[in-house]
Structure formats: C-alpha cells, structure tokens
C-alpha cells in the first residue's frame, strides 16, 4: 500500500548492477513484483481467523504501523514519567486486577481497603500526600526508596477481600488482560507488576492510533497524505499517552472505540457483508466487556449497523437483515449472558453494577437535566437556569482539559499556554470548516454515515453529562474530564486530516507537517510539565 514500494531496492545502494534498462527498469520491475504480491495477498482466501488476521495485518500500510509504534512509544514514556498511582483511579484499577489474579474472582465491593501490599506501597510512595497537592513532589530521598524496597520485599499479603474501589462495578475484560503482565511479574515487586501492566495499556494506545489512522483512511479516502496527518495527530495526543500510560480501563475503551469507528467507516465505504457484521458484533461485545462508558457509544454503533444493513438490503435482500440480527446478537450477548448468570445465581440482574445504577436514581426535572447537560458542554442559552455561573465549561473543562491537565488533575500548564492554544485550535477549526464547505456535496451524499458518527459522539456526551447530573449540585461537574471523550479520538484524527486538506493540495502537506510537529511539541511539553511537577 505504500507509495514508495521500491525504497528497499534503491539502485544507489545495490551492489549488483541492474541487468538491463538501468535504475528506472529496476524500479518498474520491483513495483510490478510488489503489485503482484499484493494482488496475491488480496486473492488469498481467508479461511481461518489466524490467516485472516495475518492477511489484514500484512495489508496495513507502513504509515499505520508507524502511527501505532509512535503512540506506543509515547504512552510508554508517560508510563515511566508518571509516578505510581498518579493516573486517575489507578489504585482501584490495580486492585481489580490483583483481585482477579490472586483470588480468581470478580470484586465484590467498592470499598477501598486494598491489599496490605497495595496499601503499603501507596503509603511509601506518598500517594495521598502528592495527589491534588502540587507543592508535594514524588519521593526523592534514598532513605524513602530503601523503606519502599524493604516494604515491597517483605511480601505483604496480596489479598484485598474483593475491594476494588471505583473500578469494582466495571466489566472484567481489561482487567482479565492485565492479569497477564501481572502474572508475568508475579515474582517481582508490586511496582514491577504495575509497570508491566502500564506497558500493556501503552500497547492499547498503539491500537487506538492504528485504528484512528485506518478510520481516516476509510472515511476520507481522497488524499492519502492526509491520512498520515490524522493518524500522527492521534498518536501524539498527550492525553492518550498519559491515560494509556497508566492502569485504567479507558486505555482499552479508546482502542475498542477506534476499532468500532474503523469498522463502521469500512462498512459505509465498501458495504456490509456477513464477515463485517460478525466483526462489528464482536467489537461491540468487546466494548461492553471493557467499560460501562461504552454504553454511551453503543446506540450510535447499533444505528450504524442498522443503516448499513438497510443499504446492503438493496443488493442482498433479506440476507442483509440477518446480518443485522447477527451483529446485534453477538454485540449484546455479553450483557445477556451476564444477566442470565446473575439471575440463575439469584444475584442482582447486573451484579455489582446494579448498585451503581441504583445510586444513579433520578432527581430534578427532565428539562433541568437537559439544561444541565447543555451547559455541561456549551454556553448557557437564554432562559436556562445557570448551573455553571461565571464559568465557560466549553473552555474551562473541555478545551483546557485537552490542552493539559495531568496527574489527578493537579498538573497544569501556566495560564498563558491555554490562551495561546486557542490560536492553533482556531486555525485547525477554520481549515476544517473550509474543507467541509468545499466538500458539501459529498457531505449530503454521506448524511447517514455522518449521522452515525454524530450519534456515537452525542450519546457518549449525553451519558457523561447525565451521570454528572446525578451528583449535581453536590458536585458541579463530577465527570467533567476530557478523558471521558477520548473514545471519539478517531473523529479528532479526521478533523486534523480535513484541516490539512482544507488548506489545499499545494499547501496542505506543509500545513500538515506543521500541525503534526506542533502536536508532537504539545506532547513533549506536556511530559516536561509533568516531570517538573513530580521531580522538579
């Protein structure tokens, strides 16, 4: 798929003289050979899933691999920079994995009496003193390190009695995967296990960037150079690196959402078939098994499968609706199985998640909730009761949160950085708007597809806003954290790609390169700011 397929056999570096025709002939032959190989790969039947996977991965363009590698490297750097348990809710997520790995059972309580081993480590790394206290830095004395090592080597108990804090009600897939690095380092200290687990999350960041690239390629196929802008933009996102550099099920949610966006875009571009329906169902099922927040993305995804089936029906008749049923059945199956198991064992229908849903009992009026959710994201409209007086949530929570708020939201840039960031953001928005305006005809033709992406985004935002409303007015914006919207990262990748295209073919690549380096700089300075906060 690469544009420069003959790069590896450049005559300048070859010790052999070309048989005839000089370097152009050699290049032409090499290209033909590559094309034949690719065609053969395309024709090869994908009889079994390992073959299918190998075939899919072989066909990935090199740019996609580079985006994936870059995102992994980025998140791996974050995993070493951020002190242990300074990623939001990391103590709870670690406790969940420990419960699964050590007791072989799901957590049974949202309490925070973690294992003696974890509690000792939290105390020794001074997690409580550092969190939300920017004046307190990470431990830095040799004596503190010796004390930590002494406690870690004294083999305190790893049993936490089923308590996993805030993470307890989450589905188990991410934590089950994390038991692999946990087990690999089980002979080491807790910090060894934590770091390996963080690196697995970093791999998930790589997958997120990979799927974002592939999504942009399917959704905006016209200009291949713009795919790279979108993919690199996502790979360099510091918030993705920070969150995926820690132990948090958000890391897998981002990757699964990326896969979902890609599959839907692929369906809209190439049409639905049985295989894609199965893959879509499987991705939705994985999403449900990953994090409760996936509920926010799922309605848009089901709408997407329904629209794809309707479109496929014109060619494949009723069979297309069987694919819809297949995708929906596979997608919803984890929820049904979980509910059935709970019913049979006389537990609450949704297990421990039931407690969370009961706690989330409605309060206030319907219009009050709608007004709150609107103001949670956007400036207040006339007639609305001010829920965030003197506070522009769009800017203060969401924009500034994306520009930079790390650790437990206690690591920020100086104020001028957020003001400065408005400039490139405005340029990107303008260039993107121009691209959309120029391509308005195509937009109309793809209204259904756009509706699906909008539904996925809006329903996720509704979920986050509605959950926050449940805690309002006790807390103003409980879930007002930009990380909750990162499942929509592929759309941001598309915005970057569109912005580069909006500048035009002549200057687009120049704009694209500038944008990508700017985003890389954003990441570098975010890491430096975090280093300054914890170690400076």
């Amino acid at each position: 798929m690469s544009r420069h397929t003959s790069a590896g056999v450049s005559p300048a570096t070859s010790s052999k003289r070309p048989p005839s025709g000089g370097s152009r002939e050699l290049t032409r032959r090499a290209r033909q050979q590559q094309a034949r190989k690719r065609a053969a790969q395309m024709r090869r039947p994908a009889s079994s899933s390992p073959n299918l996977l190998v075939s899919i991965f072989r066909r990935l363009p090199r740019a996609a691999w580079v985006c994936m590698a870059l995102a992994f490297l980025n998140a791996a750097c974050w995993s070493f920079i951020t002190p242990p348990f300074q990623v939001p809710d990391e103590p709870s997520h670690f406790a969940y994995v420990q419960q699964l790995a050590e007791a072989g059972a799901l957590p049974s309580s949202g309490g925070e009496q973690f294992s003696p081993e974890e509690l000792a480590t939290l105390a020794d790394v001074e997690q409580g003193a550092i969190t939300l206290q920017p004046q307190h830095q990470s431990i830095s004395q040799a004596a503190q390190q010796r004390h930590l090592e002494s406690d870690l080597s004294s083999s305190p108990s790893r049993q936490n009695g089923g308590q996993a804090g805030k993470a307890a009600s989450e589905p188990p897939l991410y934590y089950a995967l994390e038991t692999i690095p946990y087990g690999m380092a089980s002979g080491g200290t807790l910090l060894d296990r934590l770091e390996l687990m963080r690196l697995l999350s970093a791999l998930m960041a790589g997958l997120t960037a990979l799927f974002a690239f592939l999504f942009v390629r399917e959704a905006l196929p016209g200009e291949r150079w713009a795919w790279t802008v979108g993919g690199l933009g996502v790979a360099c996102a510091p918030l993705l690196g920070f969150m995926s550099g820690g132990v948090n099920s958000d890391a897998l949610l981002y990757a699964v959402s990326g896969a979902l966006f890609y599959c839907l875009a692929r369906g809209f571009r190439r049409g639905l078939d049985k295989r894609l329906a199965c893959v879509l169902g499987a991705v939705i099922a994985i999403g449900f098994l990953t994090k409760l927040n996936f509920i926010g993305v799922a309605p848009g995804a089901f709408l997407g499968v329904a629209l794809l089936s309707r479109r496929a029906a014109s060619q494949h008749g009723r069979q297309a609706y069987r694919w819809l049923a297949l995708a929906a059945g596979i997608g919803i199956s984890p929820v049904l199985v979980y509910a059935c198991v709970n019913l049979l064992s006389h537990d609450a229908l949704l297990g421990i998640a039931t407690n969370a849903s009961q706690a989330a009992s409605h309060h206030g009026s319907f219009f009050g909730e709608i007004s709150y959710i609107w103001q949670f994201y956007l400036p207040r409209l006339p007639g609305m009761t001010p829920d965030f007086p003197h506070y522009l949530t769009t800017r203060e929570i969401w924009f500034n949160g994306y520009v930079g708020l790390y650790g437990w939201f206690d690591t920020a840039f100086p104020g001028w950085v957020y003001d400065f960031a408005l400039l490139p953001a405005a340029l990107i928005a303008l260039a993107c708007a121009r691209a959309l305006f120029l391509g308005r005809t195509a937009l109309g033709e793809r209204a259904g597809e756009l509706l699906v992406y909008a539904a996925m985004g809006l329903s996720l935002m509704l979920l986050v806003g509605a959950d926050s409303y449940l805690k309002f007015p006790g807390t103003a914006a409980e879930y007002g954290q930009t990380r909750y919207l990162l499942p929509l990262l592929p759309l941001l990748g598309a915005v970057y790609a569109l912005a580069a295209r909006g500048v035009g073919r002549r200057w687009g690549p120049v704009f694209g390169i500038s944008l990508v380096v700017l985003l890389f700089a954003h990441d570098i300075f975010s890491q430096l700011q975090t280093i300054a906060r914890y170690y400076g």
Partner: protein
Amino acid sequence: MSRAAITLAVMLALLAIAVGLTLTRSPITVLASNGAVNQAVLVETASAVSGCQGAETLPAGTSAIRLAIGGEIGPATSVTVKSGGRILARGSRPAGWTGGTVTVPVPRPANTVKGVDVCFTLAKPLEPITIFGIPSSGAGTLRTSAAQLARGRLGIEYLHSGPSSWLSLLPTIAWRMGIGHAWPGSWIVFALLAAMLASAALLSTLALRELG
C-alpha cells in the same frame, strides 16, 4: 530540498529551540513561608468569600503567592498585598484550578516588606472550597467574609524562580526520576530521551515519506 522537508526542518528546529529555552529557565521554588501548615480547616464555603491576614512578610523577588485554599473546580481568585493602605502587589488566577492550594502570579516586588496584609477574593465557586491553616488566636489571624469554623492563620507561601536553571538541575531530576518506580535508577532518563528521539525520527521519516 522540498517545501515539506524545509517545513519539517524549521518546525523541528523551533521545537528544539523552545525546549532549550525552557531548560535555561528556573523552576519555581518556595522563597518563604508563613509556617502555617495545613493542620485545620478554617473555612468551608460554597459562597463567594474574601479575607485578609496581617503580620505577613512579602519577600523581595516573589513571583507568585500560594494560598492553602483547596477546591475541585476552583473559582476565579485574586490576591492583593497591602501595607498601610498602599498596594504592593496584585495578581489573579482564572477559575478552573484543582487541588489543595492555589498559586497566584504577582509582579515581583523589589524589596522585602514586613507587616503586610495579604488579602484574597474568591468568586462564587461551583463546588465548596476549603481554606486550610493552623489554629491560632494571636495577632494576624485570618479575617474572612464567611463564617469561620476555627480561628487561625491561613497557610501562605511566597514563590520565586529559583537560582538554578532546569538544565543545571538535570542530574538531580534524573536521580529523583529513578526513585519510587519499578526498576529504579537514572537509566530511566536516558531511556526516555532515546524514546523521544526515536519518536521524532519516526515522525519525521513518515511525514517526509507521505507528505513530502
């Protein structure tokens, strides 16, 4: 050299210069403190609040004042330092800060002034805020517009740009980064540097390949 290559070279050079300039600057450190550590909650309120505390010393060169006021979504905050009705320094911080303290930048005073009043104003917060300090009934206790849970002195720290640059502190930072992690040691810094350079190389190669 193509236009894309020139752009990439210029942008990377700008990035290197920006990082270099940042490293030549100094980190913010504590110049002086009034010693009122966070021992007690003096005020807890969900309303706009203002307050003043006397018997403070404003050191010369102070570039920011850190108040022991905590909040999840901190309100707009302003600080004024006064002496005998004369304003010595004034600064503000927009809403949205998070944590157990709020740091407000102020213009640097040339001289140290003793016996000043440090006054602050907090806009109506979205969520309750807490003012911390030490219980005290002596002179110079905090006076606020809100009802106080306890009399005492608010914790205040005076910050400035330290004497050492980030660059000269690199060995210390490298040592600190090697503490409290898995596989401790300063090797982490070199690994990070290598990863960062590898990232830059990957990005550049791909950008030139696809956009060049």
